């Protein structure tokens, strides 16, 4: 049991640290200055380009595609050193972490050559266009339709939702239905979509807090070239599963607890002389903190597994359940201790209290995560499926009649 680097890893860490030492002055600040988001985005893109040139982006991408051809531990070392240097990481985590690897696995040579370079360098940011208003948990139920015309081009109509970064993305990877007359998993295809094409509209989706954390994206008769398909027509579901696997990996390698650290929550309580000696407050804080501390070593265990060549399984989703619920309990506790002042709109706690209910469903509801883990990890039998083998078009008709 050892939390230290191997000699090779230590050498790599020094190399990364040296590069950061030389270039940290060129980095933009961690957060955008008030009212200057445009310029800040541009600076973040430039910085991503520098990181890519320095070999600190696409660490696990193959060398021939502009990456470093290294392993997940090296990626974590880069993440840690970037964190310690107090500079931002790459802007396009979704592209480089999840969508690029999907293209690498399923894309054509032309697609890789055209897109991977600008993605890696931050010249073109990408977004993930999977979820829809009626297809969240049941992702294979997407209704966005792409129709093949006689000219070999596709016409896309539909709506996506919960799309991070759509407002400044150049491209999106989009899951659409290309055949409604086969069972739902079988009629899907994956497309590359130019976010600046005519017919694409992006609208910010405001959350409880009032901030627009996500976007809705609308497609009205958007024309896609025949070569926009990734991984073959009708193979969209398999391609999507690859993306989701890389999503889990990105989460598994993420920093502990999405920034919800035990010490952050302890600070406002330590500041209140009544609260810090109150047995009820201490019990609540102790339980929350112990849960969050566990996640730190859960991440190390995941890394150990990765080093051994294992891919993190769906059980890593349980860390998200623990994180979100602990963070909810922690912000509740803090508001109980601080009182209504903690609910002032300018308070970081009010923001977290607003943000967390949505986070509970983001990336799959807690219920769906528990189903998946129960079935895939514990081997429990699935629920009876009413949609098995039924053509998608009939499914929708059935639902409409049931709620009519």
């Amino acid at each position, binding site marked *: 049991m050892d939390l230290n680097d191997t000699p090779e890893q230590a050498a790599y860490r020094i190399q990364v640290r040296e590069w950061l030492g030389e270039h940290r002055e060129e980095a933009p600040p961690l957060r955008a200055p008030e009212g200057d988001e445009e310029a800040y985005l541009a600076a973040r893109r430039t910085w991503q380009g520098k990181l890519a040139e320095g070999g600190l982006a696409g660490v696990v991408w193959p060398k021939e595609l502009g990456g470093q051809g290294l392993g997940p531990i090296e990626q974590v070392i880069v993440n840690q050193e970037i964190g310690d240097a107090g500079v931002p990481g790459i802007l396009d985590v979704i592209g480089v972490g999840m969508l690029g690897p999907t293209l690498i696995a399923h894309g054509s040579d032309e697609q890789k050559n055209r897109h991977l370079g600008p993605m890696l360098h931050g010249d073109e940011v990408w977004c993930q266009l999977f979820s829809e208003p009626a297809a969240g948990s*049941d992702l294979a139920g997407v209704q966005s339709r792409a129709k093949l015309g006689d000219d070999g081009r596709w016409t896309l109509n539909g709506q996506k939702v919960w799309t991070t970064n759509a407002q400044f993305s150049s491209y999106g990877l989009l899951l659409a239905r290309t055949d409604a007359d086969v069972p739902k998993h079988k009629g899907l295809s994956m497309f590359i979509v130019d976010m600046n094409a005519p017919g694409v509209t992006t609208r910010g989706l405001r*959350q409880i807090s*009032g901030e627009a954390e996500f976007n809705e994206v609308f497609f009205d008769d958007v024309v896609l070239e025949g070569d926009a398909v990734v991984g073959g027509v009708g193979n969209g579901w398999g391609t999507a599963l690859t993306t989701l696997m890389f999503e889990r990996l990105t989460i598994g390698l993420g920093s502990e607890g999405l920034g919800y650290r035990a010490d952050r929550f302890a600070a406002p309580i330590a500041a209140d002389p009544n609260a810090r000696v109150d047995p009820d407050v201490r019990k609540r804080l102790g339980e929350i903190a112990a849960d969050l501390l566990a996640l730190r070593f859960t991440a190390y265990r995941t890394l150990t597994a990765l080093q051994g060549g294992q891919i993190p399984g769906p059980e890593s989703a349980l860390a998200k359940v623990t994180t979100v619920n602990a963070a909810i309990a922690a912000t509740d506790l803090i508001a109980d201790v601080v009182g*209504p002042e903690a609910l002032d709109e300018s308070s970081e706690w009010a923001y977290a209290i607003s943000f967390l209910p*949505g986070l509970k469903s983001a990336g799959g509801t807690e*219920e769906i995560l528990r189903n998946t883990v129960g079935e895939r990890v514990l081997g429990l039998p699935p*629920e009876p*499926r009413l949609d098995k083998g039924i053509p998608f078009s009939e499914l929708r008709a059935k639902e409409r009649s049931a709620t009519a």
Partner: protein
Amino acid sequence: MNLSLSDEQEFLREAARGALSRFDTIAAAREALEGGELPDLWPTASEAGWAGLLVCEEHGGAGLHPFDAMLVLVECGRVLAPVPLIGHLPASWLLDRGGYADIEAVASGAKRAVLVPAQPPSDLSDLWTWEAEAGKARVPAGDTTQVAHWVVDAPGAEVFVVVGPGGAVSVVEGASVESAARYDATRSLGHVSLVGGTSTRLDVDPADAANAWHLAQTLIAAESVGTVETCLEMAVAYAKERFTFGRAIGSYQAMKHQLVEILRVLENSRSLLYYAGWAGESKPEEFALAASAARSVSGRALDSATRINIAVHGGIGATWEHDGPLFFRRAQLSRRLLGGTGAATDRVAGELLSSAGA
């Protein structure tokens, strides 16, 4: 034994629902978060006779009981209607008992009153206390402290019924109020500065001052029950019409059991409104226990119902356009006012421990 509502009570409830339905209070709640104006419901409340609900008939009121007031508050809670009754009703009740000269104006609603409440002593402390500005401690009521914080319904009130040291009650006119809206724009809230106001002692017993506190607890409890009712209705309706994997989501146990959990805590909360209503009218020695229990259970119900409602709606339930977040905001603030759900729960324990120790 009969806990059915009387015909008058049924009428009171229906009338309240009808009167409030003339305003789109939920849309107003959202707009108010961005600076929109809330509708002024006080004329409606006055017209309906709610202002004088707890004032005796000879002083121009309706001479009704706490349970009747709770029925109105349930309706307010259902639609997040900003009617300042949690402040006004206990104040009017004290003014009535204390022989306040202008009581008829208070009963008619011409003068709006507000209780500047103090938490009565418990088995742990013999102090009367006010809400602290921030932090977990409470501060001794009145005297040296001249600012009462987080007073519900203070903005716009004319008559301040202030509970001070030892449960002494004074009428203050000319107090100044700093509005202190937080998170839930429908909750009228203010810091009341008593400096510069004229204060007149009101001749009521400290036991009445304590009952005014407990009365306020029952009213905020009733309001919570109404909000929980709406959350349950919203969530059940959505669970029937939203499909995933070919089934309505309400058919899944994980959803169904959460919805039933709302029903369970709602039923428990309702039962305690009856208890508080009965004790308020017929069993004064149990009113503190009953009111505190009602606040405790309904406060926790409000928290879980507003959260489950959002979760049942999935991602969409956490968006600005959805009504779920408005109810959630209500819950987050409500549970921390008037001593918070926590103080009420503590008092339930204190009452039982005192009895058991006696």
